[in-house]
């Protein structure tokens, strides 16, 4: 028995999440930077992207803070959480504060800041790297 069964099982869940986060970040960045593609987006598109990202950040905050264990349907791929923790290992408490700030900005509907976008971009990059790594593991 090969190893494709396990790796594709993990790849499917992480690649879906990677697309979801990346698409939402693209939408927010188009709005934030007033890019020409913004014209093709509705208010609902932006609202949906905010909700997607708030939902992700809340789950991530709980996982990083190791609060009560989450029901499985809310859990994030462990590799993603571990990589975020590793990337911020020297300043996790500050990262959690920044995370909370971004959640507040997105929830309140206020304009999010460059710093929020930077944080969202860093998360999108982490999950993109992990998704590519898993893909390479089974097809390269």
């Amino acid at each position, binding site marked *: *028995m*090969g*190893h*494709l*069964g*396990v790796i*594709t*099982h*993990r790849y*499917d869940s992480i*690649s*879906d999440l*990677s*697309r979801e986060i*990346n*698409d939402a*970040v*693209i939408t927010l*960045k*188009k709005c934030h*930077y007033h*890019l*020409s*593609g913004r014209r093709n987006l509705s208010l609902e598109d932006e609202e949906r992207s905010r909700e997607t990202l708030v939902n992700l950040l809340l789950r991530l905050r709980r996982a990083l803070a190791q609060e009560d*264990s989450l029901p*499985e349907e809310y859990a994030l791929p*462990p*590799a993603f959480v571990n990589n975020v923790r590793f990337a911020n290992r020297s300043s996790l408490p500050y990262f959690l504060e920044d995370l909370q700030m971004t959640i507040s900005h997105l929830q309140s509907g206020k304009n999010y800041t460059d710093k929020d976008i930077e944080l969202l*971009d860093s998360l*999108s*990059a982490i999950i*993109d790297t992990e*998704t*590519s790594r898993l*893909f390479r593991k*089974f*097809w390269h």
Partner: protein
Amino acid sequence: MYTFLRSQLLEVSNRCEVLLAKIAERDYPVDIQFHLDSVKEEVNGLQENLNQLIHDPDLDEPRLLRNYLASFKRCYEDYLRFEREHFLVLSRYNDQDAFLYHLLKAALSDTNYPQAPPLISATSSQYYDIALHNTPQLSTVFAPVCTCYFLLQVPDLFHELGHLIYHQNEELFIARFRDQLEEYVRRETVRAKEEELPVFETLFKSIGERWHRAWMIEHAANMIATWLVGPSFGWLHLHNCISGRDDIYAPCKYDEDWDHPSNESQMAGILAMLRLQGLENDAKAIERTWSHYKGAFGAQIPPEEHRITYPLDLIVVLAENVKDGAMTMNLRPYLQQSEHPNIPTLLNEAWRRFHEEPEKFCSWEEKALEQLRSTMGIAKLNY
């Protein structure tokens, strides 16, 4: 203007077009039309995504470039999966694949599995494997090229099927086990810390991750296979153990390669599932034979790390969890199939005859396969 990234997106879209046209040039059996339609739908969806990106006015905006490269990578991964899984299978689809598809379909009907089987292709130069997709009809089983001519290794096809069943119903098979595993890892990590055993502390930290990432999936797939095809899966695992790697207790140290759990722990899981099905005599016979051979691999007594890494009581909990999951899904266990001639009973009959009359097995196997092909309307395989 076509920038490099836009041209790349266009190239992927063109490749999809070419490969879809190649597939359309062939006739396929009615049976797999369902899969063919799903593949086309999937590729059409990919082409829509590519098209959206190609026409996105912000595609080369520097502040979005990292994000668009990620989008491109996901599209390219989808394309590669189409090329290396579905196109590979469909462009070479032949009598052998059709025979295996029918065999799998009949077996699934025997076991009461509620969905169409995955596509299957006898193109693997290695062993059985399955490429899973969230859309089940896009999942693909790769079988060894000689699968059609022998019966004894067919139970491993059910291990791959176990992966598919698990992929779609994960919570059903592992929720209770996962809670107990987490409790075990937490408790033992604290104890190792209190007793100042840093090596064991490190080991415990990695045990939870390994079980979560790979081992519980492999064990669950074994147990589902054992539920469906009974002792034949245990005998085949024994064959795999004695023909496989020497260290039957590896991996059980934190620095070892750990894609699969140890052979010894897999055997314990399979035996636990046989016993839960009431197949005690079969479990004993396999266990006795395994005990006879495993001494040849070195240590008769497992290293301490093995006992810690694969606690037997947790493996039994997993087997109970998988059994409950299989019952919830109404998957028919092997024992309830044995009244009727079907694929699982044929596989067990094959192993029984192999044990009793190994010198006559080959001719029996040839006739059994011929009869099987004839009931499926595939008189002769072109090879």
